[in-house]
């Protein structure tokens, strides 16, 4: 499969709040290589999610453009899927149908799409929960469903919007290492939004640190940790700790 990178050219975006325009993104210029795991790190309100939605084609930038594989993004496309912060699962259908939903919309026949869905349910370690409804699952499990659904349509680019924001620390760590393994296996281009420094360092090849209002890139940080990464090897390493410390330094400067 052809691998695609993402280029952001001079993206700016403002919203109206209480009748006054608020500049959310200011002249964002970023390149993401094909197959790379890139994180956007920043405090809340820095426009990370807005950036992701612009890449996903759900929002239109006021200025600038997003280029994917030499083509300008004008809306959502089959090359990208999003993992949503609030999971965005259909509460009225079970896990299997939720995972197959993207394929269902694309008209894949029932038997085939359920087979694909089962494969991905297994990959996110939810086998046995095929016929549970989202309300019967914990937050972490719901987000695994969201990830499986995003992967099931086999996109080149995976956009993840603070996927672990509302799960507890224990679940979060387990999920992070599973995601790391999955990325190793699937070789997708990933754009990952987070406000956790440890998470960004552990998962990413490169990290863009953003400032708030207006959102700008204040630092581009390359993570020099070897791959494949396992939690035991990485988290204790000097390189890991130093990277986190460095990022904290940058973020602290922003206050």
């Amino acid at each position, binding site marked *: 499969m052809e691998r695609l990178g993402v280029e952001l050219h001079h993206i700016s975006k403002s919203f109206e709040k209480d009748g006054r325009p608020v500049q959310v993104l200011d002249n964002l210029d970023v390149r993401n290589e094909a197959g790379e795991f890139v994180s956007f790190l920043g405090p809340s309100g820095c426009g990370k999610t807005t950036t992701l939605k612009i890449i996903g084609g759900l929002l239109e930038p006021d200025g600038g453009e997003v280029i994917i594989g030499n083509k300008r993004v004008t809306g*959502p496309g089959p090359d990208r899927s999003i993992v949503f912060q609030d999971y965005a699962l*259909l509460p009225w*259908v079970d896990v299997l149908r939720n995972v197959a*939903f993207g394929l269902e*919309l694309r008209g894949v026949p029932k038997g085939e799409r359920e087979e694909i869905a089962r494969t991905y349910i297994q990959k996110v370690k939810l086998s046995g929960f095929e016929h549970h409804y989202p309300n019967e699952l914990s937050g972490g499990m719901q987000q695994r469903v969201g990830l499986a659904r995003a992967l099931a349509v086999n996109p080149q680019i995976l956009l993840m919007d603070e996927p672990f924001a509302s799960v507890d620390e224990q679940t979060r760590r387990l999920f992070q290492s599973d995601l790391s393994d999955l990325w190793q296996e699937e070789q997708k281009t990933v754009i990952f939004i987070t406000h956790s420094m440890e998470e960004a360092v552990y998962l990413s090849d490169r990290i863009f640190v953003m400032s708030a209002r207006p959102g700008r890139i204040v630092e581009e940080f390359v993570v020099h940790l070897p791959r494949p990464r396992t939690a035991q090897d990485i988290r204790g390493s000097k390189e890991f700790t130093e990277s986190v410390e460095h990022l904290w330094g940058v973020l602290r400067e922003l206050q």
Partner: protein
Amino acid sequence: MRSRAAKRQKVFQISIRLFSLLVFALIWEVAGRAEISFGLRPLSGTLKALVDLIGSGDLAYAFLISFRTLITGFTAAAIFGVSLGLIMGTFRRIEHFCNVYFMLLLSMPTAALIPLILLTMGFGFVAESLIVFLFAVPIIAINTHTGVLNIDASLIQMSRCFLASRSQLFLKVILPGSVPMMMAGLRLGLSRAFIGMITAELILSPLGLGRLISISTSKFQYERLFAVTLSILIVAALILDGMQRVERRLLRWRH
């Protein structure tokens, strides 16, 4: 452990309710025998009249006649109300236009229209069905509309991200997502339809239950009057409760 406490709670609840039924039955009986009010009849007499009414088939016949109009008017209201609610939820301009009319219909005393309807259409099956329709339709339409508006915005974004077409969005997200509010609207609509039916039959009553009530009153057969009224309340309560049970069954995914 928890189920044991829940069971004890249930037993407590049921015994209190039975006790309360007993107390009220006693009060009714004693008050009726003491002739606190000229028209009040004791429970025993009422129950005897109820048995007679059931035995003679008069009650069943009256219910049959009344329910014919109820079902006709309510079915029309359900079809019309749900369609209109969905249309209002989907097209903004129609929503803007219709909203105020439905709010008016919802909060105005619909009964005020009854003399006009009787005047223009005469009394009969059609006029009464129309009255039932008018009582039921606003809440059905408004609830369905609210159901559409309350659908989680992130589900719609998610569907767009997976490239749902307009019709897919409607059939797979908006329609199932608005079912809970729609069902509640139908239940409330039926409750109002009952009120409309009874009011119409009482105002000019050559039909059904209203006729039975009027005849009983004019012949001073107050036991029969109490019995018919009691049966209406019980039947309505049972039907509405049944609807609620079906609703809960169908909406198990919500817990």
